[in-house]
């Protein structure tokens, strides 16, 4: 087992011509952590991973692996393995040759390569397919082959770039669980890029949420869910994500949609009031909202509403357990417990 795998990024800046895609990324990842880089497309998460792998140079900043500065090292000299989104299997080699390739490149004796390939293939349950070529495998099997090629060399760091995005929904859920178990059993630090917040929430020990080339928040999935640092993070995490309502705090009173509540202990000013769809309840003194659509999902339902007394028809989503007793066109009064309210600055989007 590899004892290393600590990652440290210091002030990583990346520019493509005049466009700055990473504005100084700082990140610490501990040994054995399953760490997700989460963000919408174009937020810089894949670029960060590629800089970590050595596939792209950074314009500024340093990459540290186990207290070694590897910024200038070639990808092959970093002792990291990567699974690409497209898997990048070698089509002219058999599955066995694909998995053994990284070992043959360091001139490991044939017998040792063969047994290591069998072990790695068995871990991902494709040891019966070693003679096939990648073109003869299903998508899920190809993904396992790519995974086996990464684990066979026992690197100090796994880099996974959206490894599940090419699988169908059911297989993705199954593979997600297996991936997590595999990582636990191997104990190798793993950096996992995904744009799927649910995937990151369920699989990661900790995660960094990327927004427009910056890290908006780092924390455990529970922390990020419970206390999103910005409105962008709040609107990205959760399914459906957090409702954000324009509101105002004035002399200790919270004014939202024409109704005054006792305000949380924050200073006066324009705010965006965040509340999770699941935290909303029906109460007679709540804000009025008209039901636009009921999305029934069996054990829960999402009720899409529009705030009645709002200038721009602010949408608000309400999650209900079971079958909701409302119909389209109804007006409901919604409220939430004070501890379930999140207050963000209306101008900066930062948590207040």
């Amino acid at each position, binding site marked *: 087992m590899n004892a290393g795998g600590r990652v440290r990024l210091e002030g990583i800046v990346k520019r493509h011509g005049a466009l700055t895609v990473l504005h100084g990324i700082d990140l610490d990842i501990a040994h054995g952590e399953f760490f997700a880089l989460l963000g919408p497309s174009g937020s810089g998460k894949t670029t960060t991973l590629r800089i970590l*792998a*050595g*596939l792209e140079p950074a314009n500024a900043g340093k990459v540290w692996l186990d207290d070694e500065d590897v910024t200038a090292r*070639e*990808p*092959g*000299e970093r002792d*990291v*393995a*990567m699974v*690409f*989104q*497209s898997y*990048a*299997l*070698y*089509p*002219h080699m058999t599955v066995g040759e694909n998995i053994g*390739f*990284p070992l043959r*490149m*360091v001139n490991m004796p044939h017998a040792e390569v063969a047994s290591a390939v069998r072990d790695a293939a068995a871990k991902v349950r494709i040891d019966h397919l070693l003679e096939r070529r990648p*073109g003869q495998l299903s998508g899920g099997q190809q993904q396992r082959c790519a995974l086996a*090629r990464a684990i066979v*060399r026992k690197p100090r760091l796994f880099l996974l770039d959206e490894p599940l995005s090419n699988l169908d929904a059911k297989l993705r859920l199954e593979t997600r669980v297996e991936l997590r178990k595999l990582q636990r059993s191997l104990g190798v630090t793993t950096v996992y890029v995904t744009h799927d917040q649910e995937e990151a929430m369920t699989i990661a020990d900790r995660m960094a949420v990327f927004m427009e080339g910056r890290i908006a928040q780092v924390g455990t999935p529970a922390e990020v869910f419970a206390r999103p640092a910005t409105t962008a993070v709040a609107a990205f995490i959760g399914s459906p994500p957090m409702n954000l309502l324009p509101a105002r705090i004035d002399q200790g009173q919270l004014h939202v949609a024409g109704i005054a509540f006792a305000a949380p202990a924050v200073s006066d000013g324009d705010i965006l009031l965040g509340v999770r769809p699941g935290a909303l309840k029906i109460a007679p003194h709540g804000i009025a909202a008209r039901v636009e659509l009921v999305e029934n999902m069996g054990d829960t339902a999402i009720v899409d509403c529009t705030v009645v007394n709002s200038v721009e028809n602010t949408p608000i989503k309400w999650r209900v357990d079971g079958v909701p007793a409302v119909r389209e066109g109804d007006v409901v009064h919604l409220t939430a417990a004070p501890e379930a309210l999140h207050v963000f600055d209306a101008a900066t989007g930062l948590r207040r």
Partner: protein
Amino acid sequence: MSSRRWRTTGLTLIAAVLLSIWVVPVLWALLTSFKTERDVLAYPPLVFFEPTLANYREVLFGASSILPNLVSSVIVAGSATVLTMLFAVPAAYALARLALPAKRAGGFYVLATQMLPPVGLIIPYYLILQKVGALDTYGGMTAIYLTFSLPFAMWLMVSYFEDVPPEMEEAALLDRAGRLRALWHVILPQVRGGIAVTTIFVFLNAWNEFLFAVVLAGNRVRPVTVAMFNFISVEQTQWARLAAGAMLAMAPVIVLGLLAQRHIVKGLTVGAVKGGGRR
């Protein structure tokens, strides 16, 4: 007959007419190569005649044997091909992959060299080869063929390299292969088809070349295309021998063409459909 069958019949007819434009001269030459000189000149042309192998005996083993010329052709075309591929493959890979500053301009220049009419270059080439003492030498001819085949081969190979997904190479780099071994173990096997097609095109271009060979060489180095020209003289044209020689010179072309048929069709359509050229 349904309209669909009419269409198929029509297309077959058109194809047959077009094909005959290429095939009839070859068949004519094939027939001629088995005729005696007297039968060749018979009018109306004889379709049925007593075939003879005399022409082949003459052009292979007779006084005007073209065997040494075939050897010359193999040497010139072979060395031009080997050198071309040796330079074109790495160059095309670099052009396809690396972010070189003048890539676009360079690519256009490479293509532009193909647009020059070769005849306009003969005199400068003659003078250059004369200056360096390379007229009528294997080295000189190979160098001249390189100037044409290298840009062509690079241009053709670039599209094959561009078809290989970059991640495949990045995976090899992370798998500790390094650039050279990544090229050798991972990239080159993906472009095997392209290398085969390019090699054959380059070889055939050099093999069939006549203009440069007749002006810049022709005595010590006399490829088969030039040698056949000697069957045509002011006093008489030895049509039957010319035809027999042509059939012999054509043989490698046809054999190579058949061998690479599958690859060539793929090669000509590469890039037409994304990823269609591979696998």
